[in-house]
């Protein structure tokens, strides 16, 4: 099967070491041609056609192409075009390309991998008949050229064996090296330059334009189907010298015929036109070019070329003759947004589609989008060279998602195939493997409207007392067992890993795992049996952990409550059932845990969070309010933190190299600079040396009568913090594991596997560590762990930004045609503005201050105008409205009402008036709404 000849190749490097490597030559390498009678091919191993069609007029007979390295390196664009096929890529070439340019190498590999392209990579370096040794004194390049020629000769003779003369494909060697061509010709190899070859190719008009000619006349031209535009310099020369572009000089409009005559000009553009000599002038078409809807522009151009040739120039004197010319350059584009529909590509999954504008004068536009499923059959607005935009809110959401690189296409078939059936129930044998907690009184507490419930809790008093005479409790946190369904390395797993997180926009959720799992099988809904991963502690009444255990379990949640319901139940003295007593234990313990955490130095920071109340009909936000924080919120949070910490400790001990943890680095002192200065102006010296000291000084910074001041301080403190990040335990030292905000030495995410992929990994690791699941190689690979962390951090950040962008967008919708006067606090003083926060809405933005009225003190960070001084923490009254002058970038405008500055601040009276008007407006709008939504629906159909 293999030849036993050894050859030695010698290489030198650095301090000159002779490296001797074996080089085996084989006789079992296939030539890949269907015309071959000698190689023992199997049916699926033919890559090259037996009778390849020639597309080149120079070589009308069937032939294969062999390329040399420089042709691949310089003309990869030509190769990528779906024109040349039946090409042999020699290993010599492949390796040289790999050494010189990895990007091109990758592109070449992709072409080879595409079966339709019929590119065959032939391992000539290991073939016993095509391998050559470097001659003494011969350059490596010359040796490689010789190897290529040798392979070309071999193919020719190889294919001729057992074949009738003229019945086998010939070989054509494409090389731009003249010297090489000369030697090749002497050796009897048919060869030519790529330029000559491509220029004589028929049937692929655009191919010639792809040819790289060293001097690229138009570097930005991507659409090489059309003749290249002249460079600006050339156009200017033309205009001055010959005046060809002065349209005014002609009485008649100039006829630009066919797509290539129009050459990518769009209605409204200012263009440079070259007028043909008079004898080439034509009549406007008597042939109507058929508009073939689903054809690619490439095919169309080709047809036109044929048609235009047939319309012979008409005789002189014909009235209808119109000055004819062609567009040679575009001076100024006048692109705007165009409306139309998307024509989906015939290939499923393709990202390039044609956009057909409603206006006939506008050409079709190729759009690159992954949204074809969403956009198909909808009227869309296209900005040329931009993403599709639509005035519809869904489209706005799309824009947010696209801008933040959030994968949000529907789940693919492959992913959905990984799901269990809709009516899946827990099999008996699965229950046997798990701890049965169905009899425990477990309940979940979540925000209202939450359908992806991933955590549930229980607590009960245990008999007996601890050694110190304290009461004992059992507390359990039960997390949805997502990893039971999301098995490693399945399509579902890969998709979830890529998405990394569920993204929450206002009124829309982009799931990480399909709905069946996130809202049903994994969601710990009340009254239904679900699989869970439980963390159960034994604690004493002071919330000290006595014992921790992890196990997979089966639970049946007794109730799925909202924070508010839980709070009411706890407060309701008349209720004494199992659920309520469990909640009360949890609540008491949580308060102790919270106290302990804060004593440790955990920061209780604040960020303005708002909720939109949506109109049930239009899904437009109608009201906005800051989120309320209840006792029960922090109750759930405390136990989630506790579970995360317990799991993190376990993982770090079990997997010192690849545990997925979360750290929060301490902020560098420089971050606090302006913040501390602002606090000092209010008379508070904050200590930021450690998180504990910081936390303490924040607690004491209270101004009686200004309850919001402390919250404001905390909001600003939050802005000084670093981002928390995921990392794998091997990549950081143990000291670096520290979580600054939570003041705990180690932390991870375990409690939300439905919406975070980090938790999925943590579940797998934890399962492996307690022996109820097996590890797999990628889970333990430190490199993979690092790259997973990178992706998690990136997606996590993008999801946050997207969420914020969505809030901003909805605020804009809310304040559309609405003006409000509200109290605001100054967050920061900038050179030309003050940054204000409106606590009621949690909105913030700049209030611009003209420099002719205000003077900025850089040292103190204050703005003064007469006797009015604006500094951080000041309370102002501002007027809020929406500036929609630029639809693409709408923004909220803040205007000063109080303190009153003549000539700058707005008058409240005026405000009152506009307020009344807007109210009227709103009423009107409400009446209109039903009709509007109805029309929307009909449009979509």
């Amino acid at each position, binding site marked *: 099967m293999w030849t036993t000849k050894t050859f030695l190749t010698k290489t030198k490097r650095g301090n000159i070491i002779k490296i001797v490597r074996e080089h085996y030559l084989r006789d079992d390498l296939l030539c890949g041609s269907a015309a071959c009678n000698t190689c023992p091919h199997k049916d699926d191993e033919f890559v090259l056609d037996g009778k390849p069609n020639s597309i080149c007029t120079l070589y009308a007979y069937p032939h294969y192409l062999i390329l040399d390295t420089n042709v691949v390196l310089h003309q990869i664009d030509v190769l990528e075009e779906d024109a040349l096929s039946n090409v042999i890529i020699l290993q010599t070439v492949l390796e040289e390309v790999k050494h010189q340019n990895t990007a091109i190498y990758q592109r070449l590999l992709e072409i*080879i991998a595409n079966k339709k392209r019929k590119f065959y990579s032939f391992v000539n370096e290991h073939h016993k008949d095509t391998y050559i040794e470097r001659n003494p004194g011969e350059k490596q390049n010359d040796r490689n050229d010789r190897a290529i020629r040798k392979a070309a000769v071999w193919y020719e003779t190889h294919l001729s064996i057992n074949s009738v003369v003229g019945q086998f494909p010939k070989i054509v060697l494409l090389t731009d090296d003249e010297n090489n061509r000369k030697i090749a010709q002497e050796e009897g190899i048919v060869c030519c330059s790529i330029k000559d070859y491509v220029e004589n190719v028929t049937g692929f008009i655009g191919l010639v334009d792809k040819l790289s000619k060293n001097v690229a006349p138009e570097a930005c031209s991507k659409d090489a189907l059309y003749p290249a535009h002249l460079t600006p310099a050339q156009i200017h020369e033309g205009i001055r010298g010959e005046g060809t572009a002065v349209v005014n000089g002609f009485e008649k409009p100039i006829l630009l015929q066919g797509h290539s005559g129009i050459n990518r000009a769009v209605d409204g553009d200012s263009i440079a036109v070259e007028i043909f000599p008079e004898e080439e002038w034509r009549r406007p078409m008597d042939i109507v070019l058929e508009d073939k809807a689903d054809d690619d522009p490439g095919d169309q151009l080709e047809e036109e070329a044929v048609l235009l040739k047939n319309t012979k120039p008409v005789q002189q004197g014909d009235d209808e003759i119109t000055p004819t010319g062609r567009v040679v350059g575009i001076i100024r584009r006048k692109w705007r947004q165009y409306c139309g529909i998307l024509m989906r590509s015939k290939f499923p999954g393709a990202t390039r589609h044609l956009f057909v504008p409603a206006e006939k004068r506008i050409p079709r536009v190729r759009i690159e989008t992954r949204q074809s499923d969403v956009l198909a059959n909808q009227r869309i607005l296209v900005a040329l060279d931009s993403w599709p935009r639509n005035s519809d809110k869904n489209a706005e959401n799309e824009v947010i998602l696209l801008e933040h690189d959030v994968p949000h296409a529907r789940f693919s078939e492959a992913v959905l195939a990984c799901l269990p059936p809709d009516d899946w129930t827990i099999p008996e044998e699965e229950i046997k493997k798990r701890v049965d907690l169905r009899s425990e009184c477990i309940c979940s507490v979540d925000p209202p409207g939450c359908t992806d419930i991933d955590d549930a809790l229980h607590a009960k008093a245990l008999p007996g007392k601890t050694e110190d005479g304290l009461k004992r409790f059992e507390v359990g946190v039960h997390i949805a067992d997502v990893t039971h369904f999301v098995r490693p390395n399945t399509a579902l797993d890969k998709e979830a890993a890529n998405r990394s997180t569920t993204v929450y926009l206002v009124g829309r959720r982009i799931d990480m795992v399909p709905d069946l799992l996130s809202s049903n099988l994994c969601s710990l809904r009340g009254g239904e049996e679900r699989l869970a991963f439980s963390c159960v502690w034994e604690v004493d009444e002071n919330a000290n952990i006595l014992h921790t255990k992890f196990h997979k379990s089966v639970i049946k949640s007794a109730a799925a409550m909202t924070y508010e319901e839980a709070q009411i139940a706890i407060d309701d003295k008349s209720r004494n059932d199992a659920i309520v007593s469990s909640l009360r234990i949890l609540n008491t313990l949580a308060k102790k845990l919270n106290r302990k955490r804060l004593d440790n130095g955990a920061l209780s920071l604040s960020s303005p969070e708002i909720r939109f109340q949506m109109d049930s009909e239009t899904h437009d936000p109608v009201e906005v309010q800051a989120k309320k924080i209840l006792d029960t919120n922090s109750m759930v949070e405390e136990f989630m933190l506790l579970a995360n910490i317990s799991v993190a400790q376990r993982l770090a001990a079990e997997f010192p190299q690849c545990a997925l943890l979360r750290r929060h680095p301490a902020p560098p002192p420089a971050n606090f600079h302006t913040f501390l200065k602002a606090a000092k102006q209010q008379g508070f010296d904050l200590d930021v040396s450690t998180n504990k000291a910081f936390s303490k000084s924040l607690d004491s910074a209270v101004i009686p009568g200004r309850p919001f001041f402390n919250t404001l301080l905390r909001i600003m403190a939050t802005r000084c913090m670093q981002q928390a990040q995921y990392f794998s335990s091997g990549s950081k030292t143990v000291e670096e594991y520290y979580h600054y905000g939570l003041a705990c030495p180690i932390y991870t995410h375990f409690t939300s596997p439905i919406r975070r992929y980090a938790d999925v990994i943590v579940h797998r690791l934890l399962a492996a560590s307690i022996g109820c699941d097996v590890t797999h190689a990628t889970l333990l690979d430190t490199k993979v762990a690092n790259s997973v962390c990178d992706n998690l951090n990136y997606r996590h950040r993008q999801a946050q930004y997207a969420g914020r962008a969505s809030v901003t967008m909805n605020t804009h919708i809310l304040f559309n045609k609405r003006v409000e006067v509200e109290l605001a606090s100054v967050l920061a003083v900038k050179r030309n503005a003050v940054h204000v926060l409106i606590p009621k809405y949690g909105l913030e933005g700049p209030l611009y201050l003209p420099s002719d009225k205000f003077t900025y003190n850089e040292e103190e960070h204050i703005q003064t105008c007469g006797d009015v001084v604006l500094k951080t923490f000041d309370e102002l009254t501002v007027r809020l409205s929406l500036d929609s002058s630029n639809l693409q970038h709408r923004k909220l405008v803040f205007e000063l009402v109080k303190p009153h500055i003549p000539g700058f601040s707005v008058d409240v009276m005026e405000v009152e008036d506009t307020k009344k008007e807007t109210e009227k407006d709103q009423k009107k709008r409400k009446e209109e709404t039903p009709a509007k939504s109805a029309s929307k629906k009909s449009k979509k159909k």
Partner: protein
Amino acid sequence: MSSDFNVKRPGLELLSSQGLRLDGRRPNELRRIQCKLGVFTQPDGSAYIEQGNTKVLAAVYGPHQASKSKSLQDSVVINCQYSMATFSTGERKKRSGGRKSEAISMQLTQAITTAIKKELYPRSQIDVYLEVLQADGGAYSASVNAATLALIDAGIPMKAYLCSCTASIAWKDGKPEPLVDVSHVEESAGGSVLTVSSLPSINSVAWVDMSQRLHADYLSVVMKRAMQGCRDIEVILDKAVREHLGESWTMSDDAVAI
């Protein structure tokens, strides 16, 4: 950033897209093996083996009377000494008596001890000397194979052919593909190398060594490939022994050399 997790693993580049290794072999192919028995006249048995560019000389003395301190009442003592020639690698180094050589000597002793019918020579000693002339990966394996041939040449009864082979792992299209008989380049570029010394004809393993961590999922495929390598080597050794003896035997394979 790309959302793709195709992390570059060690061993990724070891297989070309056409499925060939760096030196042109397929994953399941051994390097060229050439061997010769009886290369010296001084020792009781000797052999020379080339596995690709790895070249090893083996010499066997004994069995002879063991020194009093070492001698065992009911079995033979194997004394194995492994050393690498200073010129055996690209960079010239003084290597004799190194710690690594000592460790390999111990490992060789263990492997050889399992293959010899020890009970036939009580209070005796057999010395096996191994010299690596050129090292290009798998020096330990080549040494074991050379020792086997030298022992046969010395006429020392063995249970079966003791053969050794290495295997490593590479990735092709994201799937693991074990490589048999890894060369030095593959050893240094790749991940974990598994070395197996076995007695293929009686289906027993004498010695297994792994150079670094390998996930359990892949162990069985790599092991399987190494064992297949041992079986392939056995055929080659057997052929060499028969050629050396210059006559065709009619006995079955596993009765060799008794």
